[in-house]
């Protein structure tokens, strides 16, 4: 991997890290004033090449552009409507837990939670005391990807390509085994329960970004796997740049 390619890859990885962080925050808690101020000052990519990502950004941006009055309260109410719901039948909201979507009775704290907990611990991570939800919450799974991204960036900056490769592999495995195994179902529910375009857009954006990210990781890892093949390396970086387009949202 040449120096230029490394710089390009690092930039894409940084973009991915920022996007994972951004998405994780949006799922974790309601939008507060600080986040709202950030959102209205951000620039969102208009054409990433991924229809879901584009539509998600447009819906979020469109909602924020039209919202007036007590936006934070409206978003907080919609957060409850989207992720908590008011029923007890297990079908009243887009529950943000992997266990709900991967257990037959839609229960929390099932096998999926145990599996991700093992992975977090294997990565040397433990949840903070303040976190009272299950570890298979979408926000934590996205944050786990963010942390792996950070480590991959650090490894790349240190010139440790093997460690970087291993971390990217871990990201892809986690993406395939967990996030992409259930999130699309939650994304479908996120089109039903919220009333605002903000959370509907978030559902689409996350869905598109995760699919895009797998394409990116597949491309990078297959390129690295070819070892000294220069064409393969170049291809991986080009693909990385295009696949990473979804991560271009930036704070103005």
């Amino acid at each position, binding site marked *: 991997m040449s120096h230029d390619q490394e710089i390009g890859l690092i930039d894409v990885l940084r973009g991915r890290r920022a996007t994972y962080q951004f998405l994780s925050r949006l799922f974790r808690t309601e939008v507060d004033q600080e986040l709202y101020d950030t959102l209205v000052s951000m620039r969102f*990519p*208009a*054409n990433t090449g991924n229809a879901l990502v584009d539509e998600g950004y447009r819906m979020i941006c469109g909602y924020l*552009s039209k919202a*007036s009055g*007590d936006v934070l*309260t409206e978003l907080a109410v919609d957060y409850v409507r989207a992720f908590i719901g008011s029923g007890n039948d297990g079908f009243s909201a887009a529950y943000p837990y992997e266990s709900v979507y991967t257990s037959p009775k839609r229960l929390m704290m099932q096998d999926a939670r145990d599996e991700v907990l093992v992975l977090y611990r294997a990565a040397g991570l433990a949840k903070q005391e303040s976190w009272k939800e299950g570890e298979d919450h979408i926000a934590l799974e996205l944050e786990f990807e963010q942390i792996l991204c950070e480590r991959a960036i650090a490894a790349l900056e240190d010139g440790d390509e093997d460690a970087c490769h291993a971390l990217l592999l871990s990201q892809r495995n986690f993406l395939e085994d967990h996030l992409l195994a259930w999130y699309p*179902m939650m994304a479908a529910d996120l089109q039903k329960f919220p009333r605002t375009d903000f959370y509907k857009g978030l559902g689409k954006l996350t869905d598109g970004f995760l699919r895009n990210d797998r394409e990116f990781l597949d491309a990078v890892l297959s390129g690295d796997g070819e070892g000294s093949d220069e064409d393969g390396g170049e291809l991986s970086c080009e693909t990385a740049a295009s696949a990473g387009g979804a991560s271009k949202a930036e704070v103005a």
Partner: protein
Amino acid sequence: MSDVEAFVIDDDFDPLADLDLDEGERDDAEADYLPPIPDADKSVVPPPVELSPAERIEKLLSGMPGQQFRLLRAVELCTESRTLEEAASALDEAHPSPTSVYNSIQVIQLLERAGALERLEHAEAEDGPAQGEGFRAKGAVGGSADAAVAAPVAEADAASPEGEGLDGSFISVTPAPPCRYQATQAGLDAIAAHVNEDRIVHKITEEKHYLPIFQRVLEMTAREGGCPTKELDAAVDGDPLCAEPRRFCGFFRGKLEETGAIEWRDTWAITDLGRSVLASGLFEASSSAEGTAPCSSGASASSDAASFAEGVAALSSSER
């Protein structure tokens, strides 16, 4: 010999072994579960119950009985269109409610959702028609839901010094255009239905032998600075009319508050509506009627209420 040596612990013991169950029938049989979830089709949002604006407004008012006159006042203030900030500050001034969990902006948004107010999206057209036309034209290109987004993108493309094309362009949040709120016909109908003297007259003449009590409460609350609760209680609770059946001041105060004749402003104060009822001659008519035909209590009094109210309403309208 210890107990452990006396018993043999059989780790392989299977209590279901003698039942000859197939693997599929056993609850503990291992089965990998794979999405999609069999009952995923149950994850549906029930269709919303369609209600007319009038029904939604009534539902809102009955759901917030302590706030209904504040809500109606907000509608009244928007008879002529106002921006959200203007309407909120006017409501704060006209009907201050510092203890309510709903601030004025939320009240206006609730009324909009109920259909009592409508949002005039392109209000800027009144101030600058050319600008408004331009906005709509750009919005039409981007689709209705994306109007606010499409416009800045188009502008950014034109103005960007880097010459970002459509492929490389970004979208950003632009402040919502200054929209205005205006009362709908359903909202005005709700005001007409709830804010009127006849409603008060009908309520307080349901048991017309209590008219002197109502009159006393209205007169005390009509004083400069209103009247505190304790003083009202002291003036009413000991009245012989309240002895059998036992009534307390809250009973009368509640009826007057419910119909908008008095309101709480750190003390109990009469409203304009209550003041006009007090000045309508209702109580004088009552006392003169009592002088000629003493009223009976209970059901007969209630049955007389309607005809009595009609008479008083006619009297008050003739005075107006």
